[in-house]
C-alpha cells in the first residue's frame, strides 16, 4: 500500500511560507500530476515526499506511516530528476546498479536486475556507455532505469521531460504512463506544462502560491474549474474572462458588447447576484464564427481582429471588444481568411459558460 497523504503540511524558509497548509491524498497506484506556474511550490511538495526537504509543520504519510523524519532511503521512493542527475563517471550499468550495490545485493542478482530494467527500457545496447555519450532521450531512459530497478512503491518525477524535444516528449509521455500502469506503482509527477498534466494524470492537483487550488480528473478540471485560477491555467489558449452584470431579474448577463441569457443550470446560484457583477468564463473553443458552429444557444458579438495565430488545423484570433481591456480569444477554422483590423462577428456557446464570484474568485454552484 503506497498511498500518500499530506495533512496540513507547511513548508517555510524563515518567514517565507512556500507551502501553506497542504491537504492532499494521493491514492495507491494512482498517477498524480502536480501542476502550477513556477514558484507555486510543486517541486517543494515533491521533494518533501522524497525526503530531500524537511517538513516544517503537519504530517506526511506514506501508507499509514508518518514519514516526516524518515530518511529518504527508507521511504521506498525513487525519483527522476529534471536534469536526470546521472553520475557522469559511471557507465549506464553502474548508474543503474549504484543503489543495488549500496544495499550489498549479491553480484549476480544485481546483474540480473539491471539487465531486466535495461531490457524494459531498451537500454541493453548502451550499458557500457558513459552518460556523456548518450542522447537526451537515452539519458532520460537511464534515469528511469535507475528508478525502476529498485522496485520502489512510489515514483517521483520532477519535470522529467522538460529537456527533451517536442517529438520525444510526446513519445516519453506515453511510455512513462504505460510503465507506471504496468509496474503498478504510485506516481507523483511535477510539471508546469498543462498539456503534460492533462494527458498523463489520473488526477491533477493544481497548486498556486503554495496552496492547492483544485484536485480532480483532467476532465473535472476542464469542465468545472473551481476558481478563476484553475479556469485560466487549464486549457490553451486561456479561458476568456469577462466581467458582466446580472439583470435585476437574474436572467440575463450584460456586457457592452454581448448579452448572455443565464443558462438553466446556473439560475439558482446566480440568484444571489441580481444587479451585481459576475465573472463569466468562456473557453476560446466556445467562441466561434457564426457559420462555423451548430450550437443551439448562442449570443452574438463582434470584435476587431488584433492578432491571428495560424496553427494549421485552426487559427486563434485575438480581438478587441467593446467594454473590455483584455482581448477576446476565439478558435476558428484555418480557412477563415480574416485580416488584422477587420471586424468579425462571432457567437458564444452560452450553455458552456462558467460563472465565478468576482470577490472570492470561486465558481458558483451549477446544477
Amino acid at each position, binding site marked *: 500500500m503506497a498511498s500518500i497523504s499530506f495533512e496540513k503540511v507547511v513548508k517555510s524558509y524563515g518567514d517565507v511560507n512556500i507551502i501553506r497548509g497542504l491537504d492532499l491524498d494521493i491514492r495507491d497506484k494512482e498517477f498524480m500530476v502536480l501542476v502550477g506556474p513556477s514558484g507555486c511550490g510543486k517541486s517543494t511538495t515533491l521533494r518533501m515526499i522524497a525526503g530531500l526537504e524537511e517538513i516544517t509543520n503537519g504530517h506526511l504519510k506514506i501508507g499509514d506511516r508518518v514519514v516526516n523524519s524518515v530518511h529518504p532511503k527508507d521511504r521506498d*521512493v525513487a525519483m527522476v*530528476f529534471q536534469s536526470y542527475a546521472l553520475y557522469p563517471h559511471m557507465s549506464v550499468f553502474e548508474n543503474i546498479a549504484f543503489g543495488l550495490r549500496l544495499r550489498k545485493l549479491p553480484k549476480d542478482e544485481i546483474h540480473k536486475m539491471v539487465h531486466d530494467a535495461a531490457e524494459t527500457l531498451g537500454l541493453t545496447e548502451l550499458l557500457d556507455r558513459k552518460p556523456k555519450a548518450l542522447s537526451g532521450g537515452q539519458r532520460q531512459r537511464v534515469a528511469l532505469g535507475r528508478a525502476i530497478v529498485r522496485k520502489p512503491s512510489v515514483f517521483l518525477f520532477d519535470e522529467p521531460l522538460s529537456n527533451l524535444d517536442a517529438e520525444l516528449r510526446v513519445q516519453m509521455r506515453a511510455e512513462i504512463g504505460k510503465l507506471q500502469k504496468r509496474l503498478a506503482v504510485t506516481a507523483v509527477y511535477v510539471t508546469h506544462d498543462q498539456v503534460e498534466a492533462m494527458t498523463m494524470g489520473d488526477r491533477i492537483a493544481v497548486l498556486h502560491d503554495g496552496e492547492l487550488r483544485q484536485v480532480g480528473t483532467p476532465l473535472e478540471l476542464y469542465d468545472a474549474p473551481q476558481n478563476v485560477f484553475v479556469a485560466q491555467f487549464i486549457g490553451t489558449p486561456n479561458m476568456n474572462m469577462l466581467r458582466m452584470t446580472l439583470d435585476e431579474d437574474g436572467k440575463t448577463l450584460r456586457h457592452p458588447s454581448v448579452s448572455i441569457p443565464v443558462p438553466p443550470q446556473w439560475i439558482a446560484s446566480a440568484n444571489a447576484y441580481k444587479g451585481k457583477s459576475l465573472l463569466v468564463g468562456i473557453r476560446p473553443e466556445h467562441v466561434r464564427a457564426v457559420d462555423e458552429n451548430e450550437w443551439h444557444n448562442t449570443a452574438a458579438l463582434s470584435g476587431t481582429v488584433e492578432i491571428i495565430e495560424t496553427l494549421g488545423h485552426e487559427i486563434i484570433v485575438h480581438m478587441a471588444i467593446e467594454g473590455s481591456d483584455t482581448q477576446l480569444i476565439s478558435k476558428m477554422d484555418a480557412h477563415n481568411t480574416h485580416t488584422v483590423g477587420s471586424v468579425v462577428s462571432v457567437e458564444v456557446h452560452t450553455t458552456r459558460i462558467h460563472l465565478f464570484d468576482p470577490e472570492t474568485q470561486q465558481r458558483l454552484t451549477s446544477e
Partner: protein
Amino acid sequence: MIGQITSALMAILFAVGGCALFFVGANVLLDRTLSSRGHMTDLQRQQRDSLRESIRPWIFIGPAVALLTIFLVYPVFKSLWLSFHDANGESFVGVSNYQWALTDPEFRISIRNNLLWLLVVPTLSTGFGLLIAYMTDRLWWGQIARSLVFLPMAISFVGASVIWKFVYDYRGTQGDQIGLMNAILVAFGLEPQAWISLPFWNNFLLMVILIWIQTGFAMVILGAAIRGVPEDTLEAAQMEGASPMQMLFRIVIPQIVPTIVVVWTTITILVLKVFDIVLAMTNGQWDTEVLANLMFDWMFRGGGDFGRGSTIAVVIMIAVLPIMYWNIKRAREDEQ
C-alpha cells in the same frame, strides 16, 4: 618615508607606462611603416598586409620571450654546463660531479628525505584539504572554519617556521618548557623531548609545517570543485541510500579527479623545491637535509662549489620534469 612612497609610485608608473608605451608605440610604428594605403596594386597591398600581420604577434610576445630566455632558459643551460665543470666553473670534469653525488652520504639522505616529503606532504595536504572542504560545505560556520584553515597560506615559510620553532621548543632538562609540545608532555608528567633533533621523526615534524600551510590551498581549490558537483547527483545518491562518506568517495571524488590531480601536482612541485623550512628549522642538521638546501650549501655557503651545486640543481630539475609534463598534459586534455 614620503620620499620612498613617491619613488615607489614613480617606479610603478615608469614600468607600467613604459610597457604600455612600448606596445602601443611599436604597434603604431608597424602600421605606419607597412601601411597598405597609397598608390599600389591589390597584389602589393595583399603582400604588405600579410607581412605586417605576420610581424605583429612578435611585437606582443617578443618582450616576454626575451625575458623568459634570459631568466629561465639561459640559467638552465648554464647550470647544465656548470654541472660538468669544477668548483670554479673553469675546467671540464665530465660526470665526476654526478659520481660524487651518488656516493655522498649527505646527498643520499637528501634524496631519501625528499622522497619522504614527496610521499607525505602532497598526500596529507590534499587529503585534509578535501575532507575539510567537504565537511564544512554544509555548515553555517563552515566559512569561518575555512577562513581559519586558509590563514596559514598568508604566512611566509620562514615566518611559519619561526612559529613552529616555538611549538617544538626544548629548554634542556632544567628550565621551564615554553614549547607547546613539551608543555603537553610535562603536563602529563612525561619527559620533555628535543623534538627537532630526533633523527628520522624530525623530518615529519618539519613536514607538518608545510602541510599546515598547504592544506588551506588544497581546501580552497577543492572546495570550489566540490561546489561544482551537480547538487542533484548528490541528492540522487542520498535517495539511493548513500551515506555522507559513500557520497564523498563514490560520487564527489570521482567527479573532481582532474582538480585533485592539479592540486596534488602543484603541491608536489612545491615540495621538490622545499628549502626555507629546512633552512630555518634545522639547516639540514640531524639528518633532515633536503636537495634544495644542500644545493644552497654547496653553491653559496662554505663550499662555494659551483659544479656540485649545479649538479644538485640539475637533479631537482630532472625530478620536477615528469610531474610538470604530466600536469601540462592533463591541463591540455581538460581544455579539449
